[in-house]
């Protein structure tokens, strides 16, 4: 009997070790291999002399399942599209040779614990050269700490909360505009159209990102002379916001701004219709620019505007691998069969930031590339890539897209990129 | 000579909502005796024990144990003071062995503060033997049959070193032979100097072991006296067996 027990326990132990050796997640490319540390070191060092195989391995934990599965997929698509294109062009130039790019992606299940664990695996087990970000501020917050611990650079594209960057980290960079800037474009645009607008109501999803968006919007609105008549938050994953809509309606605001994500944005719109809330402008941080928004709301999506980090219609010109937003859109459409959402574009832009920094550093050395990233100032297909001391890209403006009555999404702001006129005002529900 | 009263209730009353389960019961239990508590189903016998032992909060009235007012005391304090009971529906600790079950009584009961778990486990051997379960000492309680579960109840209560013991239908569900040996056990417990209150439906047992009987009906005292007196009391018979039966019973007696 005790022999059986012994065997059982031993088996348990072996199973545990074998499993963990394989890692906590499933790599989508390039199966993990144990490599002697020595070999790894030469790989990381700047390539000297030609002939040798050279490659850069980028690692990321991305949400492929769980609540951010959809967004995570866009992120992964963005990363993969870049890798495919750059490898077609021979790779990233490092010094006098070109290095092939490899990507190692794990599924973090939309879970911050898992995300941190997998990034630790990417660094210590898989020994990737550089890190890319996950999706969402929470996961990014957790993983940047790991990157900092091991002094491996991480350029992330999908965590906009400024609190990620308030910790004095040296190795984290974000290519996207920080959260407080999200709704500025909408406020600018609305005032540009109708300077007589007076009042704003802001509803907020109680989450790190949305709170920053809302605070930024409130500060900016007040700076522009608007009165913020309502400012309150609802619980994350709320299923009913009727009470807030009712409260807002009693204030009769000119502009209603929502800081949150796709799901709650849809909820706010549905219940606004139910309860007859019709301001002159409906604007949201995240949601209206996504095809899901139109799918869920149908005609009720008309006139609603949303902030966008990037749109396919923007007029940027660049000498990067994609050149223009339009070319990126073509390539993306060819590969994935849909218009690229901005998450894909910013994710690809993170790799472009790396590429330019590596080129500038002429090396794959982690610290040299970090310094090059800190000094980066580059105009990409995605817009300006330049980081402030904290690692945030505060130099890129936000665009605004509107759901048009013809069922399409158009860029309506900034003016120089607008393809259509901003439809104003929002037609009240009872006049449709 | 005035006998020493070990437990006394004064107007003990228990209401459930508007329903009076026990109404103004005055009972005295004398030291060393075996008192029977009988009554029809639903007469409030178990409720009466529950309010004395603190299992249920008492609505009104007083309870004295050896002159000390224990009204409204929580059950565990009552238990530590020296009152033990068994349950009509057996309540063994199924996840424990017989020894552990009994040791719990020795650990926490009257005088339990003096014993460590180890000492308690050693102490209970004698009790287990006393109730005739020595061969089952290390069996789990969930492997026992009903008669032994009833004995286990007894052993658990005895291990608490009680001065007063309430036995709530320890003989229900047993066959004649088992009842005989249970009666013997009750007598032997009494011989150890423990005062006993027996709640029982088995009249044979009541007559066989008790010196005095107290009858409850609808929560109130109906009669008390020696077993013989009480069992021949027409009111008691009527309460027990219903009016029709009583009429028939007396008709038959007359005819005879």
């Amino acid at each position, binding site marked *: 009997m005790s022999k059986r027990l012994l065997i059982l*326990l031993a088996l348990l132990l072996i199973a545990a070790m074998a499993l963990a050796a394989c890692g906590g997640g499933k790599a989508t490319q390039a199966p993990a291999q144990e490599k002697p540390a020595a070999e790894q070191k030469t790989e990381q060092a700047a390539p000297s002399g030609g002939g040798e195989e050279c490659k850069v391995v980028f690692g990321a934990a991305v949400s492929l399942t769980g609540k951010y599965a959809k967004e995570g997929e866009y992120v992964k698509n963005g990363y993969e599209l870049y890798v495919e294109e750059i490898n077609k062009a021979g790779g990233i130039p490092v010094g006098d040779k070109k290095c092939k790019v490899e990507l190692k992606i794990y599924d973090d299940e939309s879970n911050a614990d898992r995300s941190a664990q997998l990034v630790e695996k990417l660094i210590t087990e898989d020994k990737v050269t550089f890190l890319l970000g996950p999706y969402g501020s929470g996961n990014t917050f957790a993983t940047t700490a790991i990157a900092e611990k091991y002094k491996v650079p991480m350029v992330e594209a999908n965590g906009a909360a400024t609190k990620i960057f308030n910790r004095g980290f040296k190795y984290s960079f974000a290519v996207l505009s920080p959260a407080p800037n999200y709704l500025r474009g909408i406020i600018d645009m609305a005032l540009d159209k109708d300077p007589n607008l007076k009042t704003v109501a802001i509803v907020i999803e109680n989450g790190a990102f949305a709170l920053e968006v809302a605070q930024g919007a409130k500060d900016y609105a007040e700076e522009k002379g608007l009165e913020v008549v309502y400012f309150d*938050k609802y619980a994350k994953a709320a299923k009913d916001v009727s009470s807030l809509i009712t409260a807002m309606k009693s204030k009769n605001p000119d502009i209603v701004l929502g800081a949150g994500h796709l799901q709650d944005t849809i909820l706010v719109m549905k219940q606004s219709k139910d309860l007859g809330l019709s301001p002159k402008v409906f604007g949201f941080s995240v949601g209206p620019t996504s095809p899901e928004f139109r799918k869920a709301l149908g005609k009720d999506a008309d006139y609603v505007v949303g902030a966008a980090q990037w749109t396919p219609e923007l007029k940027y010109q660049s000498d990067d691998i994609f050149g223009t937003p339009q070319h990126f859109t073509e390539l993306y459409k060819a590969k994935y069969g849909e218009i690229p959402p901005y998450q894909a574009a910013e994710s690809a832009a993170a790799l472009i930031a790396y590429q330019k920094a590596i080129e500038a550093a002429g090396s794959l050395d982690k610290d040299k590339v970090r310094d090059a990233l800190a000094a980066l100032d580059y105009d990409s297909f995605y817009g300006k890539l330049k980081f402030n001391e904290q690692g945030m890209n505060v130099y890129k403006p936000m665009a605004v897209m509107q759901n048009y009555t013809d069922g399409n999404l158009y860029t309506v702001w900034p003016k120089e990129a607008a393809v259509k006129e901003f439809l104003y005002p929002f037609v009240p529900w009872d006049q449709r | 000579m005035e006998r020493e009263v070990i437990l006394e209730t004064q107007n003990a009353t228990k209401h459930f909502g508007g329903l009076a389960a026990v109404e103004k019961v005055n009972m005295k239990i004398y030291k060393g005796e075996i008192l029977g508590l009988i009554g029809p189903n639903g007469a409030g016998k178990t409720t009466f024990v529950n309010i004395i032992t603190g*299992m249920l909060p008492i609505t009104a009235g007083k309870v004295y144990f050896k002159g000390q007012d224990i009204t409204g005391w929580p059950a565990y304090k009552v238990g530590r003071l020296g009152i033990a009971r068994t349950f009509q529906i057996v309540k063994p600790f199924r996840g424990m062995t017989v020894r552990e079950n009994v040791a719990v009584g020795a650990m*926490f009961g009257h005088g339990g503060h003096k014993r460590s778990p*180890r000492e308690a486990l050693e102490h209970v051997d004698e009790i287990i033997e006393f109730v005739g379960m020595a061969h089952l000492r290390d069996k789990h309680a969930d492997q026992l049959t009903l008669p032994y579960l009833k004995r286990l109840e007894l052993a658990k209560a005895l291990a608490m070193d009680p001065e007063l013991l309430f036995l709530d239908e320890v003989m229900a569900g047993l066959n004649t032979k088992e009842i005989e040996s249970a009666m013997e056990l009750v007598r032997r417990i009494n011989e150890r100097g423990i005062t006993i209150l027996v709640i029982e439906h088995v009249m044979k047992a009541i007559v066989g072991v008790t010196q005095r009987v107290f009858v409850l009906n609808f929560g109130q005292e109906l009669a008390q006296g020696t077993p013989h007196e009480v069992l021949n009391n027409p009111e008691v018979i009527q309460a027990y067996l219903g009016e029709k039966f009583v009429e028939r019973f007396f008709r038959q007696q007359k005819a005879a």
Partner: protein
Amino acid sequence: MSDKEKKKAPIRYSPLDGLFKGRQGVLLGLFALFALFLAIFPLLPFASGFWLNTLTLILLLAAMAIGWNFIGGYTGYAAFGNVAFFGIGAYGTGLSMIRLGLGFFPSLMIGAVAAMVFAILIGLPILRLKGHYFAIATVAIATAMGEIADSWTSFTGGAAGITLPFFSPIEWSGQFFYYMAFLLAMGGLLLTWFILNRKMGYSWVAIREDEDAANMMGINTTWAKVMAFALSALMAGLAGGIYAYWKTFVLAEEVFKIEYTLQMILAAVLGGTGTIFGPFIGAFIYYILITLLVFFLPVGQLHATILGVIIILVMVFTPKGLMDFLSGKKKLSVNALLENIRTYRV
């Protein structure tokens, strides 16, 4: 007692633990080996950061499961809100470090004590509730606490959370937190062992088996239950504090998520509730299961489904956990698996 009697009745002194029935030596030996392995693990050549991270997670889970076992396994109260203590421990530690500027260890103590005090305060009223009502009251309190922490911006930092300083020197943080978790789990096992040999252990099991009888036999059940609850809060609170410092941030949605409660219960159930080593081993089993699923299932989304199916199977066939089979108390057979259904079906 005579010598003769003593001889014929050898007494097992720690019999409340199912695992230890009759085979203490072998199992203790095996366990000691495993513990030794864990103790020297960070010194082994292949102990990378990822490995330490993974084992730290498992050991923290084990510690929480051991704590849950006090109230859920031994005392038999289906506590479904132990994550509240984890969260309070995390916030207590974090806030003490940030707002009071205390060092980690005093802060950890504050967090753990806060969790215990909270357990006592809510335990006094809600431990009077039975069965479902108790279970749901704990869920409700945990959920409400999470929401309050999430909204009380001025105190907890609200949804933005609080950020803690890094452990210094940063190169050793992996080892530091690993050993913290290791010590906590081992401490939990010792604590379990200690309690089981005290009257407290007997009162817990007695309450689980029959609270009325326990009460009547002189056990102060309220005290015993509150102690069980408070000690389980202590374990979860310490785990929460370590977790907070380890992750360097505290966010209500992370530290109050109901998944943690579920994980500790599953770990305890898989290993065997009401046994000393069950929750500890269960934490490893749970983690291995999860990892296995992630690995061998091509469709990522389905692994939660499979986990659910596994729980269902365990509940139907072996709800007492795998410990019975591991310890040889029961033979693994079709019959043994069907026994549960035979007992509980209608």
